[in-house]
């Protein structure tokens, strides 16, 4: 919200696609996919991710852990790029 209310722009496109950004399609399988586990630094998120890591490894899925410096700010660009480069999927532990 800006000082004078929400910032609104006019859609420059032919308006054939929805204005909302689309989610990426759901993965059909985790086979051959490295899964990133992102701890956003909220309390006990690590416990949840530990459990997920165990379960995923049991299924033979490769896992890599990541951590945001603080939950109060968006993930730093470097971290997002590292995750995007290394992983095919990411699970984010959101809350306490």
């Amino acid at each position: 919200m800006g000082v004078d209310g929400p910032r609104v722009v006019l859609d420059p496109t032919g308006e054939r696609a929805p204005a909302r950004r689309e989610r990426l399609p759901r993965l059909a399988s985790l086979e051959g996919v490295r899964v990133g586990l992102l701890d956003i630094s909220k309390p006990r998120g690590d416990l949840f991710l530990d459990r997920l890591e165990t379960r995923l490894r049991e299924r033979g899925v490769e896992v890599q852990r990541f951590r945001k410096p603080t939950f109060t700010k968006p993930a730093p660009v470097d971290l997002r790029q590292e995750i995007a480069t290394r992983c095919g999927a990411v699970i984010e532990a959101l809350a306490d």
Partner: protein
Amino acid sequence: MVQGPSPPPLPDGLVAFVKRDCPTCVLVAPVLARLAAEGGLTVYTQDDPAFPEGVEARDDTGLAVSWHHEIEAVPTLLRVQDGIEKERLLGWHRGEWEALTGVEGLGPGLPEWRPGCGSLSVDPGRESALRARFAGATLRSRRVELAPQEDEAEALFERGWTDGLPVVPPTEERVLAMLEGTSRDPQDVVATVPPDLVPCTVEKVAVNAVLAGCKPEYLPVVLAAVEAACTDAFNAHGLLATTMPAGPVLIVNGPIRRRIGMNAGKNVFGQGNRANSTIGRALQLVIRNVGGGRPGDVDRATHGNPGKVGFCFPEDEEDSPWEPLSVSLGKPAGVDTVTLFPGEGPRCIVDQLARDPESLARSFAANLRTLHHPKLILAFDCVLAVGPEHARVFREAGWDRARLASRLHELLQIPGEELVRGADGMAEGGPESARGKRLPKFRPGGILIVHCGGGAGLFSAMIGGWAGGSLGSQPVIQEIAPWA
């Protein structure tokens, strides 16, 4: 241009618009009080509903009435009959006010005449916001609200609306200001834009012109370019889809070049001039955003070229030895035009020694021969951009454009033996049947000659085309519709 919704009606009789911040309004306050007391005067006040004293003024601090009735100065005095404005006076002039009101002896002790002040409804700091408030509803484009934490510039990148460079956020205020650059209705359809074949309105062109960084006065050129690009002859779809590097190249002729400050001189193809840089970009953004033509998707160019961000330049008509290109292409002199050419990037032709036209024409021909491949003929058109120091040679020798073009075509009749596959140890080339013939590099009319560039330099430039002719893309010249 956007017409606002129907204006709020005015009361019959005398109507005045004032603001306390205007010394002339303060000066005539007693006159207004007298006219109000005698009946028949309604006062709209723009900044202070308590002004003028002794008058029950109507509050127009929202400026709706002032904006809709195009009040430009205060005080403005109107005479309204049956809801229709019959007379209008700006500022204070005793004789005129007495004539309009029919009341004698107004403002004894006041000077005969005082100019007014600017109306708040045309204040530069408020005008665009007022236009958005009162006329924004007439825009049809979908509104996209940016999330509170989104950076404006980043948000537009993420939505895929840019060509890789930052764009100007197309707010209602900016789009309405852009539409002031044309008298056309925002909902007029300009063209059907490939590859998705989407009908594109003047408004959508304006939104993309804002993105591109255009000023409103460039909009007529952009509209003409969009129209020209979307013709069957120009074949923007094929040009977009080709693996070759070409994109639309815009050549502007006519007085509009100077009115909007285009650069036909030094660094004509380069950076630094806003009109040159943004007009071609606006066309490419229309094709990207409205038409859905995106690199790597329908755009299959192997290399592309930097001009695909936008490539637009004017001809230097003032110092040219020749008539404008637009006139050679059959348009009347003095008419604004944009010529679209399917072109790659420009390449320099150096000849620092030729002082006679025949020698220089031979240099041009030798370079033109190599276009795309020295052994490929009749497949591509070309723009030959003659620099001023080369143009002087033709001027002094009395060669007009047609003579230069004709000589180039003669010099570019190539022996078939040099063109066949395998000749000179190169597999590329034409069929054996070419032997024993002389064949032209370019089709008739396939060399467009323009005059541009500036300062020192015995240089010209060539811009290679893409598949020329009716099976590919033909240059298209489009008249730029005047504002009204």
